[in-house]
């Protein structure tokens, strides 16, 4: 029944979609419905905030950007918000602080998550599904409540706060500026980073595990047979082969961390000003829509490069799987 000339590996769905009836309407529907949804609910909103960020706000609505009056075509761009962002040191500092916390979180997640994923992938094959389940389970339970739980653990008299104090870590942490004074763990840069690493660790472990579990053990054996020490094998074979997982995982942590709102709000305290909170306040407290939009647009500009990286390596990591 296979039409002559069609490659054998052509799957049936290929045939389904190459059926003339389906081809005429099916293909268009199949692509068009999700495409249309994304254009309407993902792309269009960005164009709208781009427009609002340069609009002048009136009582309830916005002035039109382009007006036509008495034979004069006027394009009015309001750049107040962008000038404020560029001119006000507070915004610059906020962007830098957000980038810093996102970077610190990513590095810590990688440092904890890489060995974690590595040992998971080297565990007995029978145990691996259960381990994977245990990593996924927190991911399914309410993120909000798990972050909230850290409030209780780190407040004065909390379990972890007492444990850290008993270990004598209070003084060094205070000396490093992670906490303002000994015994005050909550609402500090320290608690913010703990909350972010805690929340995003599974996002790092899962793509790493996916690449490490696929790793061909024979390559490691070959390296060993050729005289490489385990340490050299690890750096020259294992790590390069898991690059796609490292980058996908790092971006999966880094990008959302920049704009994180809930964790800084619950664990960050007043000193850790992050851009997600600034945006939130501009919108909900100051009702300054053009300003909030301008902040959003600049954050998008900030994450465009990491986003492109993420897209590329996510696709690559998937291709390896085939």
């Amino acid at each position: 029944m296979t039409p002559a000339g069609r490659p054998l590996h052509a799957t049936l769905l290929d045939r389904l979609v190459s059926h003339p009836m389906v081809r005429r309407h099916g293909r268009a529907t199949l692509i068009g419905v999700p495409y249309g949804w994304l254009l309407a609910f993902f792309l269009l909103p960005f164009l709208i905030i781009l427009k609002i960020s340069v609009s002048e706000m009136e009582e309830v609505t916005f002035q039109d950007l382009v007006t036509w009056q008495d034979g004069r075509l006027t394009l009015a761009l309001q750049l107040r918000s962008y000038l404020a962002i560029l001119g006000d040191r507070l915004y610059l500092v906020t962007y830098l602080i957000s980038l810093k916390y996102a970077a610190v979180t990513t590095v810590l997640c990688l440092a904890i998550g890489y060995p974690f994923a590595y040992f998971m992938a080297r565990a007995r094959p029978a145990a691996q599904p259960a381990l994977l389940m245990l990593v996924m389970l927190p991911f399914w339970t309410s993120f909000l409540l798990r972050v909230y739980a850290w409030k209780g653990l780190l407040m004065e008299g909390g379990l972890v706060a007492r444990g850290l104090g008993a270990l004598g870590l209070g003084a060094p942490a205070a000396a490093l500026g992670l906490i303002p004074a000994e015994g005050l763990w909550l609402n500090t840069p320290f608690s913010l980073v703990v909350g972010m690493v805690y929340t995003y660790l599974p996002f790092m472990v899962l793509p790493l595990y996916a690449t490490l579990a696929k790793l061909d053990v024979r390559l490691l054996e070959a390296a060993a047979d050729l005289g490489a020490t385990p340490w050299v094998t690890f750096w020259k074979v294992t790590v390069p082969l898991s690059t796609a997982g490292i980058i996908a995982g790092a971006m999966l942590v880094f990008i959302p961390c920049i704009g994180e709102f809930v964790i800084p709000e619950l664990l960050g305290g007043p000193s850790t000003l992050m851009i997600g909170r600034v945006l939130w306040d501009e919108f909900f407290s100051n009702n300054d829509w053009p300003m909030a939009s301008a902040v959003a647009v600049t954050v998008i500009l900030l994450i465009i490069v990491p986003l492109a990286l993420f897209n590329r390596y996510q696709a690559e990591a998937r291709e390896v799987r085939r």
Partner: protein
Amino acid sequence: MSPARPALRRPPLLGPGFHRGFGRGWLTAGFLFLYLPMAALVLASFNASPLPARWGGATLRWYRELLQDGELGAGLWLSVEIAAWAATASVVLGTLAAVALTRYRRFRGRTLFGGMVSAPLVMPEVIVGLSLLLMFVSVQRWFGVPERGALTIWMGHVLLGLAYATVVVQARLEGMNPALEEAAADLGARPLQVFWLVTLPLMAQALAAAWLLTFTLSLDDVVLSAFLSGPGSTTLPLVLFSRARLGQRPDINAAASLIILVVTIGVTVASVLLARAERRRAAELRAAQRPTG
């Protein structure tokens, strides 16, 4: 030349004993880190003392009070309703997107499509929430709809869920053996029959997993809901978030413990069932592919 070494199935880092011990230790510490907060919440929910730092004996008082909490109850019901609809729509749209991306290697705007599908996975939620809200406000100015409320929250959650559902379904489609569909076609099944009788059953577990994942994502979402909710559409996470900002509270601890319990049981049961179905399917596949002569 170094002498030939005996081949090791799992080359150790610093000797097998160290490797095993260190690996176990690292995994244990990691899981402790992941599960300690949840255990602490459950423990705190039984604390009779309303002061969180002191243990005042065990009680079920906070659970009893939970039953009388109308605000939480209404929020939970609304959240479940939105989550069920959002998960269903996400899985339908995500399946279409995944099929489009795996079966059509090239079509106009494929790069943009792929980018838009996966961007919500990482895009900071405040940005997605703000831009969606401002779009709804603009659309409302022209057409009078949509009113901010459960419907707008649903649309936001579908956008997020679509991204996750696509990833899950796409992974399954790419791992699928094309020979099965081939065989069905060669035995005379028409394309749509094959889709219903072969492809869809093969995808069923991925669809179920995607539905569960998007359901819990929607049930859990704070930021999108905060932007997109209107008066009278306060979901459970919004209620919990507004209370959690104030500090440790026994009512949240009890609610959290119940959620953890339900999710743990639900996910465990679901994954056991899915794993069993997966094994059965794998066995059938092996049986079907065994050479017969």
